């Protein structure tokens, strides 16, 4: 199949406006005849379900948690970008567009990124109307701060809980539609299968995580809003329920998986402390507005710190290396995430790392507290300081935070066209689940923007166009065929689960997942080499074989069984891990988060190869024992010429 991105004609400023004119609509009286399934209830899923409910469609929302309010969007801390230019610092839709494209190292689709920037301001307006308590100045106007990879202040925030507040906003809009009877929320359900009929999505099959019941839900369209697959690496900033299973189910039904190798590593997370650590906690990028990152300039100081002989505050300023300010003076501590992560790794690899293991750098607020006062800093970051102190038992107001990079976000996801439809007709992917807007690296405070842009302002326009083209229900042939497909799907899922539940080895799922994560972190993490990745493939296969021999799942299938839930995800991670590596192997260039050591500038920054790799790599599933096929969507840049992505001058 040739990839049809369906990018509209016209100038980039007019594409979305013109395109909306051409999209078909559904009359209000007819909307209630359409069943829409939304999988996932984070920012993207909740906003889409609410907006579609408002229009009058019948919407079923599925989520794994007991309530949509707990979706992982809730953990986003720092903020949400918009091109309001409230600070008069020469921001504009165009500047947000260019920053995002450049931040993604010119591996995103130009038209999609422009549209994202274009609708960004509507999101702020709507969220304010929903009652999101964004930070305000004393006159009552909205406040802003800065995030990495930009030279303007365009980030709106609600303390360090912006994701929570936006999610509660979207969730409240969702609740209003539940009360109105348009939306049904089905919680504690996990998607197990996508049902397709002649290449068209006609429903999903889910497992009730309390009773184990397997049920199929027919749908006129399926919206996948299940987030990213960062948890494949075991240790990540993702919540424990985040997983890649729904993405893989859709992949196996014909949805192409785009740029799976683009995985973001966040530079400022609390470092790993023990073997049993289950997740890594992010310390918001917003902290880099006022915090300065450094390591000792002398190796002996670093060694003394590791041994606990001196404290960070004992090291005088002239003996500190503020390496981001030194290497990237124009952006300083606010370089994009991939740049900051690599720079931290470089310092630690060279012996300047600071905690027990030597795998950490400092994020220091002493200067900020001295110049701005403790009260101001506390108001901006108080909850983050509290969180850090609870975890580490160290007060970051007195001694600098210790931080280290960790897996955070996946730019890769299901391939979608301009209408956010995947290569399976009637299957749409929104938010982190799709690949479309962030290229090879996402800028800070843009995930919330994209989730809400897709859910509130893009999908509600593009989905009706698809629905309007569907045959009328009464004329539909083959409804019984669809019912048969649903029954088959239920049977298939039951067989898979029975096999899993029959695994009676004595090693728990976590044992394997932790090992898989370690392989991936080392071989397809910050630095990637041809040799390392080629070694990783057989290691993963061997681990999967060991899992089949020695893995154990206790408990039944018709009850709450969290081991079974984890096993379902682990099985998908084995396949997904190989896909990620294959994608990273084929892309013999460095761009954004994807750093092939073979392709670097003399300064150790990414070196792109636009001649050969200016494309989206979309992978097609070809069957269980067959190699997936790579399809390329060439990227054209008419408005922004891919240039240097240097942040140093």
């Amino acid at each position, binding site marked *: 199949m040739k990839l049809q991105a369906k990018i509209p004609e016209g100038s980039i400023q007019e594409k979305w406006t013109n395109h909306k004119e051409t999209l078909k609509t559904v009359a209000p009286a007819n909307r209630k005849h359409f069943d829409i399934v939304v999988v996932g209830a984070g920012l993207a899923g909740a*906003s889409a379900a609410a907006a579609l409910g408002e229009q009058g469609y019948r919407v079923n929302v599925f989520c794994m948690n*007991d*309530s949509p*309010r*707990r979706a*992982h969007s809730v*953990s986003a801390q720092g903020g949400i970008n918009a091109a*309001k230019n409230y600070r008069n610092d020469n921001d504009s839709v165009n500047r947000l567009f260019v920053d995002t494209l450049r931040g993604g190292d010119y591996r995103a689709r130009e038209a999609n990124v422009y549209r994202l920037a274009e609708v960004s301001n509507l999101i*702020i*307006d*709507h969220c*304010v*109307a*929903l*009652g999101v*308590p964004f930070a*305000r100045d004393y*006159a009552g*106007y*909205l406040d802003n701060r800065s995030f990495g990879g930009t030279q303007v202040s365009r980030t709106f925030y*609600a303390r360090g*809980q912006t994701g*929570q507040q936006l999610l509660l906003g979207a969730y*409240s809009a969702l*609740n*209003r539609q539940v*009360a109105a009877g348009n939306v049904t*929320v089905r*919680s504690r359900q996990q998607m197990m299968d996508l049902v397709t009929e002649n290449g068209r999505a006609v429903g999903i099959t889910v497992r009730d995580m*309390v009773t184990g019941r397997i049920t199929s839900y027919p749908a006129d369209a399926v919206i996948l809003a299940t987030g990213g697959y960062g948890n494949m690496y075991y240790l990540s900033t993702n*919540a*424990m*329920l985040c997983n890649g299973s729904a993405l893989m189910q859709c992949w196996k039904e014909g949805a192409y998986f785009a740029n799976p190798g683009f995985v973001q590593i966040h530079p400022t997370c609390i470092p790993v*402390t*023990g*073997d*049993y650590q*289950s*997740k890594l*906690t*992010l310390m918001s990028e917003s902290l880099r507005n006022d915090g300065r990152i450094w390591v000792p300039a002398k190796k002996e100081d670093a060694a003394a710190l590791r041994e606990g002989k001196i404290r960070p505050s004992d090291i005088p300023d002239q003996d500190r290396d503020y390496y981001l300010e030194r290497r990237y003076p124009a952006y300083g501590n606010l370089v994009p995430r991939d740049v900051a992560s690599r720079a931290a790794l470089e310092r630690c690899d060279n012996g300047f790392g600071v905690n027990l293991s030597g795998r950490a750098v400092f994020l220091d607020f002493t200067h900020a507290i001295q110049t701005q006062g403790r009260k101001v800093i506390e*108001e901006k970051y108080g*909850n983050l300081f509290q*969180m850090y102190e*609870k*975890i580490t*038992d160290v007060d970051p107001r007195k001694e600098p935070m210790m931080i280290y990079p960790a897996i955070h976000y996946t730019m890769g996801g299901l391939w979608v066209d301009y209408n956010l439809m995947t290569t399976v007709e009637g299957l749409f992917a929104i938010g982190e689940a799709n690949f479309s807007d962030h290229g090879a690296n996402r800028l800070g405070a843009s995930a919330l923007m994209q989730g809400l842009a897709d859910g*509130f*302002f893009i999908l509600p326009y593009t989905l009706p166009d698809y629905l309007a083209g569907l045959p009328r229900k009464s004329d539909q042939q083959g409804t019984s065929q669809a019912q048969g497909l649903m029954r088959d799907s239920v049977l298939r899922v039951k067989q898979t689960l029975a096999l899993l539940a029959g695994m*009676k080895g*004595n*090693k*728990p799922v*976590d044992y394997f997942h932790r090992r898989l994560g370690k392989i991936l972190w080392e071989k397809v993490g910050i630095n990637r080499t041809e040799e390392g990745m080629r070694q990783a493939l057989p290691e993963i296969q061997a681990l999967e074989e060991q899992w089949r021999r020695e893995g*154990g*799942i*206790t*408990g039944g299938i018709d*009850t*709450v069984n969290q081991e079974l839930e984890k096993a379902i995800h682990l099985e998908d991670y084995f396949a997904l891990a190989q896909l990620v590596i294959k994608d990273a192997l084929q892309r013999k260039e460095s761009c954004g988060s994807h750093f092939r050591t073979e392709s670097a500038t003399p300064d150790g920054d990414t070196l792109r190869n636009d001649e050969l790799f200016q494309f989206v790599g979309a992978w097609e599933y070809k069957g269980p024992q067959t190699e997936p096929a790579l399809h390329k969507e060439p990227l054209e840049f008419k408005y922004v010429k891919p240039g240097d992505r240097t942040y140093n001058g």
Partner: protein
Amino acid sequence: MDNNSNMHFVLKVWRQASPKAKGYFQTLPVDGISPDTSFMELLDIVNNRLVEQGQETIAFDHDCREGICGACGLYINGRPHGPDDEITTCQLYMRRFANGSTITVEPWRSAAFPVIKDLMVERKALDKILQAGGFVSVNTGAAPEAHNILIPHAKVEESMDAAACVGCGACVATCKNRSAMLFVAARVSSLALLPQGKPEAARRAKAMVKEMDRLGFGSCTNIGDCQAECPKGITVDHIARLNREFLYRKR
């Protein structure tokens, strides 16, 4: 293995196979624990060892493990979220416990939160309360330019204090009346403080309180345990504001 993984504990964990089944405390000794282990990770370790012995694991709710999703909620040694202030259970670390001590772990106890299994309870009632009116009735696309609504700094900060609620249910679990008053007040107050939420404020307060009563939560008798155990430090001042909203409506 950490060099300092030398703590040991005896866990007394509530086990209950299903909502209607009879529950009991299971005693589980656990050793080799580092003080930097979080309470959720302690349960992970215990569960992994149960799998190694072919036994069924302990079911418990958890997700973000950084104190913001509100999924986790356990009674630990008789306190919601355990022996520390302004934390959720996932932010509790084993360094807070005396080495060798016995730790009692129970699910939330409230008629409105029936036990699903072991330490997992059903909290859909909280969603239902919010569905009764915890929103601003604005359609997507209908919003005015954001700066047309000005909100003084202090007001929005106070609104944010209340909006920080994570919906964990600790306030209900700790209340002797099993009242959800602090939960309801947090949402009502957060919106009532903002101009966007004003037009519906009185109707909202009445509808949400009515739904709370219908769902079997108790009444508030101003004890204040909820404030003491709230992981986000939400105060009973917001209950006072809820009561004011409620009274205006009655008039």
